[in-house]
């Protein structure tokens, strides 16, 4: 009889677990409010995007998206808990509900958007694959890489795009795939591979982590489109909108000249109706998103507008010194464009 009882107990437990497994609209927002923090999946250490500083606080452009969401939902940008994930672990972590959102330099592709139960909310950074080589090899173009051994991070679009590039150019290569970017970098330094390939932003970040950064050079070719953005689970439109509009709020703020320094003054006395709507001084646009009236004010005050976030983490104000390029606003020659708040 004891066996029957315990079997019944297991059955009951499984039923409860199974029933709670559905993603429902609003479920993530309620969960985040209840637990009091946003559980955010980030990279396992990529300078400029998500990396812990000397005090253990995470820094980077991907981290700032998580902080923005926390500021909008909970009114406090510091209420984020981070889960460092390797490229291989990331999708399972978001699918299974281990993290509430993924902000981890992840490329937006059709199969990831449609076939994995996930949705991308936007593009935080327009990137493309490049090559990092030792100057000693005397290579000046990716076309000269026939027969090269290439270090790649496992489970990335890079694996596929490098293969496409070499195939279409009739070149041969040997891939060596590692789980973490640190292992790839170590192997490049030991010259196990001739080339390290990854998104260009990552190459600049990994170059400064090498012992002798000046011995290495990033080749001019960019061989693919890699739009990087945050990811949420499919089926929860409310949470999807919140993460999407957090980025849009940052972009709209930059476009309107609202910064973390002037945001409070602007919220009170701006003459620009766009700014008044964005900052909640006019209308009830926060309510539509199930957010407080001052959601955008909190994001911009605590985290900053897109330009500030970019400069601080990867741009002129950082070690990486990456140009805005494609990531400039649409009216300044780039691709970053946000729909209006109205």
């Amino acid at each position, binding site marked *: *009889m004891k*066996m*029957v009882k315990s*079997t*019944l107990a*297991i*059955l009951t437990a*499984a*039923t409860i677990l*199974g029933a709670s*497994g*559905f*993603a429902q609209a609003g479920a993530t927002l309620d969960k985040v409010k209840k637990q009091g923090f946003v559980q955010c999946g980030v990279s396992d250490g990529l300078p400029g995007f998500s990396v812990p500083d000397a005090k253990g606080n995470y820094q980077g452009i991907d981290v700032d998206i998580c902080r923005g969401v926390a500021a909008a939902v909970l009114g406090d940008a510091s209420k984020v808990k981070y889960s460092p994930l390797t*490229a*291989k672990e990331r*999708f*399972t972590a978001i*699918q299974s509900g281990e993290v509430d959102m993924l902000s981890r330099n992840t490329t937006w592709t059709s*199969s*990831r958007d*449609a*076939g*994995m*139960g996930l949705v991308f909310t936007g593009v935080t950074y327009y990137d493309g694959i490049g090559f990092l080589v030792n100057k000693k*090899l005397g290579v000046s173009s990716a076309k000269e*890489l*026939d*027969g*090269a*051994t290439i270090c790649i991070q*496992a*489970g*990335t679009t890079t*694996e*596929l795009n*490098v*293969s*496409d590039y*070499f*195939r279409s150019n009739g070149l041969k*290569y*040997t*891939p*060596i*795939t*590692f*789980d973490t970017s640190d*292992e790839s970098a*170590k*192997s490049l330094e*030991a*010259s*196990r591979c*001739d080339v390290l390939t990854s998104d260009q932003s990552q190459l600049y970040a990994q170059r400064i982590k090498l012992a002798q950064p000046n011995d290495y050079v990033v080749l001019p070719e960019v061989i693919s489109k890699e739009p990087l953005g945050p990811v949420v*689970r*499919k*089926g929860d439109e409310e949470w999807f909108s919140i993460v999407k509009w957090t980025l849009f709020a940052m972009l709209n703020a930059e476009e309107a000249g609202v910064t973390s320094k002037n945001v409070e003054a602007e919220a009170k006395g701006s003459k620009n109706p766009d700014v008044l709507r964005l900052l909640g001084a006019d209308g009830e646009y926060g309510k539509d998103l199930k957010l407080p009236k001052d959601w955008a004010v909190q994001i911009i005050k605590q985290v900053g507008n897109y330009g500030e976030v970019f400069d601080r983490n990867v741009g002129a104000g950082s070690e990486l010194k990456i140009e805005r390029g494609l990531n400039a606003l649409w009216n300044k020659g780039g691709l970053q464009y946000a729909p209006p708040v109205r």
Partner: protein
Amino acid sequence: MQNQIGTSRSFSLSDPRFRAWLFQIITLVAVVSMGWFLFDNTQTNLQHRGITSGFGFLENSAGFGIAQHLISYTESDTYARVFVIGLLNTLLVSAIGIVFATLLGFILGVARLSSNWMVSKLATVYIETFRNIPPLLQILFWYFAVLLPLPGPRNSLNIADSFFLSNRGLYMPEGHTADGFVAFVVAVLLAIVGTVLMVRWANKRFEATGVPFHKFWAGLAIMVLIPAISVLAFGSPFHWVAPALKGFNFVGGWVMIPELLALTIALTAYTAAFIAEIVRSGIKSVSHGQTEAAHSLGLRNGPTLRKVIIPQALRVIIPPLTSQYLNLAKNSSLAAGIGYPDMVSLFAGTVLNQTGQAIEVIAITMSVYLAISISISLLMNWYNKRIALIER
């Protein structure tokens, strides 16, 4: 009265036989319905979240490169082929590891029992060092600390212009079949048949007359002489192509990539330490009286060990040895740490990530390890039965 209760078919709970059956059936129904429930629940949830499921992805083209493949592979091949490549790479490292770990383990186990102080202490130090360091650390050590600091391909260690050791791996000459190849294969087959016949004849004569025959030396002579005659008469079976430096790396020749080298060395060294202890315990389990008895019959040390001690020790050695083989095969999944394209790193890593079908991929991978382990177990159990002491 008692007899009646035993034979009658009463459907009452007080009948122990009926009760036993009832509980069996209830448990079976519970287990099956729980399995069905879990399966159905997973399917519903996957569908609800829009996650693709099923095994159709195996037919899609993979689109990424692989560093080491034992069968031909291009990027346009399917995920199913990637699966086979991963499986073969796992089997390759397991097989090499099992062979070398057994050899090294037996040598170390016997060495530890040696009466030579130096030999036995060296074996002790080896065993205590290697079995007390986690295998992943050993793999990382061999890879990052020993093999990667080797010189690059342009400054590689050159052995007779045919073997090149660099941090790109060990390059060896590649054999291409030549004119004498068919004759050579026939000669080797003939030699094997000849050796078997010779052993049979020698055993028969030994049983009948008690006169021993030098089976080993005669067999060696047959195995060397017949193929040698074929080479002299019909020409060499292979012509060897040495690897040559071209562009970034060597071209041509066979290569053992450093990931495979590091993994093999580490797994061999680690498992050999355990096997040595198993061998030692096996030999120790045979009482010293057996040695004395063999000596008093006039057997020397060598035949005593081969004919008396080892056959009895094997009965103790084989069961735990099986566990060590299983451990080695399973530890090979640590390959992911150094980028060796094995089953876990290639299939449960890259393929899982490119397709996002975690449940299917993990289920396949687990079944594969289960199948490998069960095969090793069955083989070793069969061998164990063969050598077990036949008791009346």
